[in-house]
């Protein structure tokens, strides 16, 4: 026994990890506590709710309301959760708004740096999607996620793109997308429409999105009736808003 305690303890398997022969408490402060800043987003603060996306013939449309919720408080009622990356790509994010602002800052700087290269190339939607997937997955692997679910849309080389990335690094593409409550309430509606008609016109896609936003406003307690819409076509990316949803409460009169 004396020999063991006199011997130096073996180094931990990885930084801050368990050392053989020692009791391991993952929650106890590790050797690097207080030395480096704790930079993990363990809980989202101001959050955005659903983001919707739909492909149409000749482009893609995404939509998000303009609310930043602080728990149940509708705190910031005029924030934009959509970002125009460049003339071919746009994205919208739900989840922590501070993390989205950070992401937007990083992406904006990337776009500037690319512009400075002056080679005529700019990021394609697929490229941004692929890059963001790596970023989100690597952050999650360090237990320091960007607490967002992101929808990336765009129109590049004559093809529509619509992709999803979340805070775990789960990524996929689909003809319609919805995050948050939209996945339960709006996605079935959008898929039903697309099952009947294999492709939509821009008007039809816009109407579908508006219908879904209205339903989300009725049913999602953390939603708001003011929203923005971003449309990517061969002409470029345009962010429109704020648009207001008109709610119809006539059925209330039927109930006594």
């Amino acid at each position, binding site marked *: 026994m004396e020999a063991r305690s006199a011997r130096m303890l073996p180094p931990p398997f990885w930084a801050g990890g368990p050392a053989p022969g020692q009791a391991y408490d993952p929650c106890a402060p590790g050797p690097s506590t207080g030395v480096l*800043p*704790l*930079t*993990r*987003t*363990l*809980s*989202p*603060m*101001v*959050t955005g709710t659903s983001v919707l996306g739909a492909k149409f013939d000749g482009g893609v449309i995404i939509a998000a309301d303009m609310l*930043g919720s*602080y*728990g*149940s*408080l509708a*705190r*910031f009622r005029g*924030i934009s959760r959509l970002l125009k990356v460049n003339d071919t790509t746009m994205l919208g994010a739900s*989840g*922590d*708004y*501070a993390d989205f*602002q*950070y992401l937007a800052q990083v992406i904006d700087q990337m776009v500037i740096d690319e512009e400075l290269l002056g080679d005529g190339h700019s990021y394609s939607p697929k490229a941004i999607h692929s890059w963001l997937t790596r970023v989100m997955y690597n952050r999650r692997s360090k237990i320091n996620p960007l607490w967002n*679910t992101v929808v990336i849309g765009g129109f590049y080389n004559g093809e529509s793109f619509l992709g999803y990335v*979340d*805070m775990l690094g789960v990524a996929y593409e689909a003809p319609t997308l919805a995050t*948050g*409550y939209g*996945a339960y309430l709006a996605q079935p509606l959008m898929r039903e429409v697309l099952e009947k008609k294999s492709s939509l016109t821009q008007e039809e896609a816009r109407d579908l999105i508006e219908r879904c936003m209205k339903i989300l406003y009725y049913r999602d307690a953390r939603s708001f009736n003011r929203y923005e819409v971003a449309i990517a076509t061969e002409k470029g990316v345009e962010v429109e808003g704020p648009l207001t949803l008109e709610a119809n409460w006539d059925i209330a009169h039927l109930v006594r």
Partner: protein
Amino acid sequence: MGLNGAVMGLGAHLWGSYGSGGTTTIMAAEFDGGVVIGADSSYVANRVTDKLTPIHDRIFCCRSGSAADTQAVAEAVAYQLAFHSVELQEPPRVRTAARLFQQSCYRYREELSAGIIVAGWDPRRGGQVYAVPLGGLLHPQPLAIGGSGSSYVYGFVDASFRPGLSREECTHSALTLALAMSRDGSSGGVVRLATVTAEGVERKVLTGAELEGGEGGAMS
């Protein structure tokens, strides 16, 4: 999905024993030509604290949350801003001050408990107000309220404020704080107001006797 569960669990985290903004009510409103800022004065240890901290000649911050955290961040920002102003050879922008707060508050978001409102006047954009709440986002607003007492006056503020108010109309600010203080057990003391314009900073302290609405009005 698990993520939604995590967001719902947010409620328990926020409204737990720490509350969402310490023991404070703070606010800032912009008018044409400057800003009016205000705060209550209560802390556990000091009932006449000053939560309106100058960051530069014409830039203030209203502090809520942990006093230690906000004082530390405010001092760091004041230093950075003083340096920046000397390099620039002109008064710093309010937005720059807000951005400096945001950088610290976002970076150290898991360690800090700081809800800050940055407000002031600069020659480029006049009076401006920026909110930097828990989590470290940055949001410019014509009017911002914060601290635990702010929950009680969201309705009053929504009903009585609109962008484009004059300086006199911004004296509603005192009433906002008085109402919040009378309902929030964690806020209280005196109301500290400051008006920041191109000409300078005018500070006022309003005690209980001078505040109307301090008794809760019709509902006692």
